[in-house]
């Protein structure tokens, strides 16, 4: 069983859901994020949040995957003050929806004053609601931005055990772990982290508090990031226990602190969910070997459309 704790499924196809289910993904977390195009109305942002707690959750359930999400105002759109003020008013309502496992992804992009303001306000909200936090660390000036993100969490009295610092790399991981935060790694081609590098990190650091995710979204990215990393790690001699931790258990432990994500959700779901929101993972129950293939192969193999 695998968990992908960072996947923007609203931007992905049904082929991806199918592939993830086939590869053994039983649950995933969809962080509220930037859609690639800025929202210019508060209402469009609100409807987006409704979509990830509603329709997207249902869609995932049809493939036997349990869908959770995080709620937040991302760093890029925090720079539109009018939008940000409006969105902040709606966040408390969404933070208590079913399956919301954290406030996130929040943090810095360009490290502006407005980003700082809304990052802090949302940390306070997480504290008030006793929810974990998913922190997006910046692409540019990454090392300093990552340290600063952790400084600010500590300043607000947030327990590092409630915070996942995501998009780590070789340069940031030591400090993140040393300070007691969860260290997320996004297996995202070209920009963030490749799975071969990830395997080297696992050999060096082991599996404590390390979380692997795909961060798949509207860019060139791979929804099988977690599955491919797990496979490569096992083939490279990383222990099964470590792989299980970084590709399943740690994400469950970190985000399970919300009280909204439990193993029973996919192993023993409530009857009402089986009737309505979750089709169950027949592949998992049937004990078939998880397999990995690319979306291109899946499409090419099937000629008939019925």
């Amino acid at each position: 069983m695998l968990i992908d704790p960072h996947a923007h499924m609203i931007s992905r196809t049904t082929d991806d859901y199918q592939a993830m289910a086939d590869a053994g993904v039983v649950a995933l977390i969809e962080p509220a994020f930037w859609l690639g195009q800025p929202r210019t109305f508060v209402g469009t942002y609100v409807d987006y949040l409704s979509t990830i707690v509603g329709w997207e959750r249902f869609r995932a359930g049809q493939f036997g995957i349990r869908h959770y999400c995080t709620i937040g105002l991302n760093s890029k759109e925090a720079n539109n003050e009018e939008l940000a003020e409006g969105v902040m008013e709606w966040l408390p309502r969404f933070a208590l929806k079913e399956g919301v496992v954290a406030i996130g992804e929040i943090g810095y992009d360009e490290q502006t004053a407005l980003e700082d303001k809304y990052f802090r306000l949302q940390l306070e909200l997480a504290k008030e609601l006793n929810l974990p936090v998913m922190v997006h660390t910046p692409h540019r000036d990454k090392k300093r931005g990552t340290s600063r993100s952790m400084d600010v969490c500590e300043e607000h009295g947030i327990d590092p055990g409630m915070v996942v610092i995501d998009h780590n790399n070789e340069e940031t991981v030591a400090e993140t772990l040393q300070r007691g935060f969860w260290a997320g790694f996004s297996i995202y081609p070209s920009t963030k982290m490749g799975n071969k590098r990830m395997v080297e990190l696992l050999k060096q650091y082991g599996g404590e508090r390390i979380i692997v995710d795909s961060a798949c979204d509207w860019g060139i990215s791979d929804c099988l990031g977690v599955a491919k990393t797990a496979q490569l790690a096992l083939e490279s001699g990383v222990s099964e226990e470590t792989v299980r931790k970084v590709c399943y258990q740690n994400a469950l432990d970190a985000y399970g602190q919300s009280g909204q994500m439990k193993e029973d959700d996919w192993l023993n779901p409530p009857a009402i969910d089986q009737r309505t929101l979750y089709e169950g993972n027949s592949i998992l129950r049937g004990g078939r070997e998880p397999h990995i293939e690319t979306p291109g192969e899946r499409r090419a193999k099937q000629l008939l459309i019925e």
Partner: protein
Amino acid sequence: MTDQPADLLQRWVTTQAGDAAPWVTDQLATLAQGAAERDLHIFLGLAPRKLGKSDLVLSPADRAAADAAHAGWEPQGWSIDGAARVLGLLRFKAQRPFAQVFKDLRRTADAGEMIALYRGLPLYPEPETLDFEVGEGLRSNLKPVFEAIAHRNPFPRDHFDQHRWNHMILKALFVGSDLGPITGLKDRANPELARILVDYAQERWAAGRPVSEELWIPVRPFADAPEIRSRLDRARAEGHLEEALQ
């Protein structure tokens, strides 16, 4: 005197709530005293966290009481948190029209809330003001939300005009929902629906796809109407319709 639906819901929910029963009772009292809408939001959000999501346990007597309290009301298949949510909404003393409160909740609802909100339809005040809200639910892409309105719910039978009724039946067939659980399926049969359904069956046969047996339930009463009969004769001539309408 028969119980009101809200009284029944409160009895069922508190009986089943265990340790959370005092919390429910306390919250409902607050909501009934004209609390802020924020308190309603929090109650609705906390309901599954406090109560879990198990099925509402109902005896045959409970089901009979439901039907006596509101004709056609079938709460079997409701969950305890869903029942509590509907109950909270019924007890809430709103400062503005019910439909506005409902709209605001529906716009930001998660899937579980949406199902609960729509299952409660037959019990809400001012049903005639919920026309738009019901339309939004019927248009939902979430099959369980559509079914919260269409299945075991007397609201469509009691309040839909013919056009909306017919399109609900047709959508049920399109999304693969059973027609059997639709309250009033026979009572609301009409010639226009019969014609639409036979045309739909023709489309399915042409595409080589199966036709639900249930489709014929609302067609049967009009099988002898000239417009329907000619279509059925054609279907028989083409080798469809062996036993469906016998």
